[in-house]
């Protein structure tokens, strides 16, 4: 078995876009460290030649014909918006 996996909580929280307090970071790191230790057991399983399952039951070619249907009105689309202006969702200015 390999060594205990390392979870870089800062990097992962950054990827997940969740601001964590130092206390949360410490707590989650410890708890998830335990979970990861448990999960390490999967390395014992011989999976050579085994196909991965992305679905419970994979069926192919599930699609719909290209026929346009009515959607939501702008009003309905924005009914839960935390901030809006001119029928658009407003967010603080995005700078790329």
């Amino acid at each position, binding site marked *: 078995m390999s060594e205990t996996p390392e979870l870089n909580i800062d990097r*992962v929280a950054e990827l997940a*876009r969740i601001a964590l307090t130092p206390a949360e970071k410490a707590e989650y790191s410890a708890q998830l460290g335990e979970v990861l230790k*448990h*999960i390490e057991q999967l390395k014992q*399983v011989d999976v050579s030649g*085994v196909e991965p399952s*992305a679905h*419970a039951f994979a069926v192919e070619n599930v699609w719909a014909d290209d026929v346009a249907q009515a959607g939501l009105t702008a009003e309905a689309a924005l009914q839960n*918006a935390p901030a809006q202006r001119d029928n658009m969702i407003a*967010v603080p200015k995005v700078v790329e």
Partner: protein
Amino acid sequence: MAHSLPFQSLTQVADQLAAGQVSSVELTQAVIDQTQAVEDRVNAFISTDSVDALAQAAAADQRRAVGELLGPLDGVPIALKDVIAVRDQPLTAGSKMLEKFVSPYDATVTTKLKDAGAVLWGRANCDEFAMGSSTENSAFKTTANPYDLSRVPGGSSGGSAAALAAGEAIATLGSDTGGSIRQPAAFCNVVGLKPTYGLISRYGLAAYASSLDQIGSFTRTVEDAAIMLGAIAGHDDRDSTSFKTPIPDYRAALAEKKGPWKLGIPKEYFGEGLDPEVGAAVEKAIAFYREQGCEIKEVSLPHTEYCLSTYYIIATAEASSNLARYDGVRYTHRSADAKTVEDVYFKSRAEGFGAEVKRRIILGTYVLSSGYYDAYYLRAQKVRTLIRQDFLNAYQKVDAVLTPTTPTPAFKIGETADPLAMYLQDIYTVSVNLAGLPGISIPAGFSEAGLPIGLQLIGQPYQEADLLAIANTYDSTHDWNSRLPEL
């Protein structure tokens, strides 16, 4: 049984409604009254709308008056777990993130229930985004187990199970990703059915883990479960994972399919950690089936010990992506303190999500992240294939697999604080989701302390008619469900 209206089975109330012995308004009012009487202790619902429910009931009574009854659900109050969209009604998923969200559309199951004339009543409490095994992770309230208010009702569909057990609905819907219907059903002395993946549309079900989630029912009897399944099953062209298969008359199948059945007992489910009282109850059920002429065979599901790890990798990975949409931008909680777009994300998600959701998003993000994907996610997908193969091998020899639903009866509120210990709650149920199979938990007795015990039967893909018939063999000859909670 001569229970008061709110504690009668769906079959019983449907017969009385059809015979005109009771009106839907009377029935709905009785359920509302019962809810008002017990809800302060049970806390099963996040929101209720009596005015709306009574209006639906009145419409059902009008249909009956002109002889246009839509079927056995017409006029019957049914509660939905608060992860299923109902147009113009709140949908919180038990999260502060969606505290003010009102759905502009109906889930497919909602449409089906409306079409069947059901009175949609009450949004049942649940663990936040269906992540949990106790309903303690709800942002709004902790639901109590009606059989012991100091204990959890199970989760994540704890509100749905508790509401039914406490007479606050005639049937309820839940969702099951790793046991979230079956475990609370076992804890609350009701029947909980998780159908085969793909039998019921997921459209309108706030996703936790897309490849595992499935909507199912809580009912008082297996016969009721057959009626509910008939109403909500079927292919949906809005869900690409919904399966095209003919929907039989499940209720009729109960009478037609008599067995005797071949039942498999997986030795891996009867090992360490199984509470002796639960084990004894399950052994009694096995003995019953043997007496009925069923062939009982030991089967092996050799990858059982890897199910939990596989489940927590796949479920959290999918969840980390599924829950990215709750970002403070379009319709969720947005932090009042957000000055930049990054603030909108980081702060809204920090404020809007509870601890367990954050933990699972972190874990899921990690297992998908660069450098770890093959070791965790890809490997888990392969082990998933092996787990499914175990079951398919077993089904060469048996019609269904019989196991306990949970290792123990309901635990105390606040007792299980450690996430890993909580995850172990799902040890007998997650395999069913990983393999995509139908599973049902039925009442199978009580512990000495008076806590309900559940029996799990696991069927073959899309063979719900067989599974229900097997379950009904036991359920229709036992009356555990007549033991009501003392509230």
